[in-house]
């Protein structure tokens, strides 16, 4: 995308005002999106966004500028703006010599979606529509979206690093409405991987459609969710977002450094039930949060965050790691070339326990069984977090019984981690997610085996 000698000159320009670090992040994204709604392919859209963000760090100050102009002149202009923004007196000339990193592949792509005809993508959605509508006569509406994107990335910095990457992600989203005597209900499901079009050889889109429709249909018979504190069993592969919110964000070093995390100063301490080993793993092949290198050029890693309940480490980007004089962990990510990198999760999951999930349900006299979760959010400073249940059931006398209407669950991260008292052996990854932080969204994955939390507050209306 950009030659090394141009990158060297741009980085040198970034350092001219006396800064101690300069970085170029250039990306070229091309993507296709198809939307189906109300029984029709509404439109097919294709797009391209490319540009470069230039970051210059001088002491504690970061200057950042971006441009859609990838010519040398465009890059030099952005470098001057970034350098000016980070200016801290001084000045001088530094020479940057770049060494290209060997390229690394975490998620091999078999079929680049850009080589597949648009008609094949449209056809996937027609199949989705038909399958969802055939799932039950009460299905009154279906919308679905297909999207793929391929991003080529070049990252170079004044420490001499040049790294290249190519990322392909393919996503299908289905949402269905069912209409019954008590009004409408919705169901949602999605499928997304860092994979090419071969994804649809491995998974039948009809299954995704039926899962979404099934959720809407189930809830037609749902009763209001309970209000108050109850044991909660979370189905394998549906509750990773709990860990993402309950502690993942709180283990991001930028928040820890500012004292905005309840996990500050807790490394080496027991912060969760000894059943819990939590990992953030950017190397998990084909998962939605998988990356070969992070957006600062550092190879992705398998990072153990909590081991048998004990906090082992936080997640790190370049800036925080540099401040602490320690290695990065491959968690420096950004939404696009227009954004500064931050500490972000990749695929965050809890390792398997030993129990048969059926026993966990059987041993729960009364509670709630959560089979599918919506999004969540957390206040990292207090640890209070919520997540939405989009498919849930009552557990009565050790059996899953009636479906429940939607609602949020609320808990406090450190408390909920301690209250995990059962862990299954049926690990599964969940739906693809987009994690939002400081206005930037990045693709993330999560997963866990079936587990039980001794008590959580269910935000329903039934007493």
């Amino acid at each position, binding site marked *: 995308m950009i030659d090394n000698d141009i990158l060297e000159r741009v980085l040198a320009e970034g350092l001219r005002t006396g800064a101690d670090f300069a970085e170029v992040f250039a990306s070229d994204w091309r993507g296709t999106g198809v939307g189906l709604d109300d029984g029709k392919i509404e439109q097919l859209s294709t797009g391209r966004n490319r540009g470069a963000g230039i970051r210059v760090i001088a002491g504690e100050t970061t200057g950042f500028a971006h441009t859609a102009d990838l010519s040398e002149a465009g890059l030099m202009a952005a470098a001057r703006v970034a350098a000016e923004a980070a200016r801290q007196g001084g000045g001088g000339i530094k020479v940057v010599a770049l060494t290209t990193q060997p390229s690394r592949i975490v998620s091999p792509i078999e079929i680049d979606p850009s080589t597949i005809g648009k008609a094949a993508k449209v056809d996937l959605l027609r199949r989705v529509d038909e399958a969802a509508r055939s799932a039950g006569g009460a299905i009154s509406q279906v919308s679905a979206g297909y999207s793929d994107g391929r991003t080529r990335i070049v990252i170079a910095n004044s420490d001499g690093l040049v790294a290249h990457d190519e990322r392909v992600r393919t996503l299908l989203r289905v949402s269905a*409405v069912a209409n019954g005597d008590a009004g409408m209900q919705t169901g949602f499901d999605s499928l997304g991987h860092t994979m090419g079009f071969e994804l649809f050889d491995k998974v039948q889109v009809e299954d995704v459609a039926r899962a979404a429709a099934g959720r809407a249909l189930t809830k037609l018979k749902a009763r209001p969710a309970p209000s108050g504190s109850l044991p909660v069993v979370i189905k394998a592969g549906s509750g990773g977002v709990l860990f993402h919110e309950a502690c993942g964000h709180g283990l991001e070093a930028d928040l820890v450094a500012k004292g905005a995390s309840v996990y500050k100063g807790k490394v080496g301490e027991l912060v969760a039930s000894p059943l819990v080993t939590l990992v953030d793993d950017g190397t998990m092949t084909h998962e939605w949060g998988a990356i070969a290198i992070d957006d600062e050029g550092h190879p992705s890693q398998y990072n153990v965050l909590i081991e048998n309940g004990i906090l082992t480490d936080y997640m790190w980007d370049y800036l925080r790691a540099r401040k602490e004089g320690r290695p990065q962990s491959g968690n420096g990510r950004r939404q696009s070339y227009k954004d500064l990198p931050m500490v972000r999760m990749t695929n965050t999951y809890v390792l398997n326990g030993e129990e048969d999930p059926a026993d966990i349900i059987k041993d729960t006299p009364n509670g709630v069984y959560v089979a599918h979760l919506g999004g969540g959010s957390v206040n990292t400073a207090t640890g209070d977090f*919520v997540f939405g249940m989009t498919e849930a059931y009552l557990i009565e006398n050790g059996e899953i019984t009636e479906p429940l209407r939607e609602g949020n669950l609320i808990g406090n991260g450190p408390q909920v981690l301690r209250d995990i008292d059962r862990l299954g052996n049926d690990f599964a990854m969940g739906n693809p997610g987009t994690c939002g932080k400081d206005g930037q969204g990045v693709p993330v994955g999560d997963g866990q085996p079936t587990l039980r939390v001794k008590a959580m*507050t269910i935000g329903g209306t039934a007493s």
Partner: protein
Amino acid sequence: MSTPDRSAELLVIAERVVAMAKPGEQVEAYVSRGLSTEVRVYEGEVEHFVSAQSEGIGIRVIKDGRTGTSYCGTLDPSQIAEVLAEARDNLGYGEPDEWSGLAEPDGVAVVPQSLWDDNLENTPTTRKIELAKLLEKLTLAGDSRVRVDDSNYSDAFGEAAVATTTGIRVAGRENGCYLSVGTLADDGDETQTGFGFAVGRNVDELDLERAAREAVDRATRLLGATKPESRRITVVLDPFVTAQFLGIIGGTLNGESVVKGRSLFAQRIGEAVANPLLTLVDDPTNPLAYTATDIDGEGLAARRNVLIQDGVLQKFVQSTYSARRMGVSPTGNGLRGGYGGSPSAGCLALQIVPGLRAQADIVAGIDDGILIQQVQGLHSGVNAVSGDFSTGAAGLLIKNGTVGAPVREFTIASTLQKMLLNIAEVGGDLEWLPMSATGVSLVIHDVTMSGA
């Protein structure tokens, strides 16, 4: 010194694309360009300074009821030709829809807005940095228990143009600035968080003292908060929370949801859907609204639309598509999320017609209630199709007419339908907030609080 309005240049680019339409084609070009600055200060130093420039074009082509779109993040002429060719190719894969079509000028006069202030453009960078530093300092001075997470100044300059083969030709520009501060308040092992903000068309309009005070109050007043007992209760929503609630209600009053069978309120025009105390208006022509605008995303004049009058549903907001499909007049509510998105129906600037009393007077009349100051998880706990409403919250209990103990880690739940009918009072404390809805204190009866 002031720079000339260069949005006319964008209109020229858009018109050039439109002129390339082939017989039988409708073509729309949306062209935008923007420049923004963001300064973040931490502990008296600039943590980062971001200077961001962006531009792009989105093209829609409609032929025989089929729609294709394409976009690109540059205004490079060679790329634009490719975008048009792609949009044309893409329409071959859309299915014919008899109501598809671009907006047509409908004779509604544009209400001019002053969306541009030269003073902001002439503000030196050093002043922007000083403001963020000052806000941090004022906030820290407010209470010794308070730390500042970050103090931010940001501004944005944007210009955009839309041209279509159906006769739309509009261009304009706007700018504005924003200050925000995030706070942490500590008491022993406990930490609570807050935030404050100030908005303006230029930096002299920014009220730093108020932003600092609110950031301090929001964080400190929750110190010592406990988890309340579960029960049914009367809630008073703080103006900032009400604005978020109105945003959700606005999302249900949408013609596109109606025609696609996803609206709670389809077939309810003329019926009482809310307590008669509620009158809800979408009015982007009110210059006090943060999201005031003269033109919608499809190029029609923005206009005042009464959605709910004295509790009775009056109309839905419409895009050109949904208005045509419902057989009603356009409402000027085409929303566009930048050059990469297609327009869809949405509220532009929701306003609730305020009542008379201040929050303190309202609280004085409540024996057992809760003042909700923060909500968390509206995106995950509210379903605008089924109407189920459940959100995490924090606030202060109200006992015998006075505000008392702070509470947190609980949810409030009901359904949107019930909440509208159970509105018991609309406050007189109207606030113009940096979002697409205004706030007032809003009292709602019979909401379920779930805690311990």
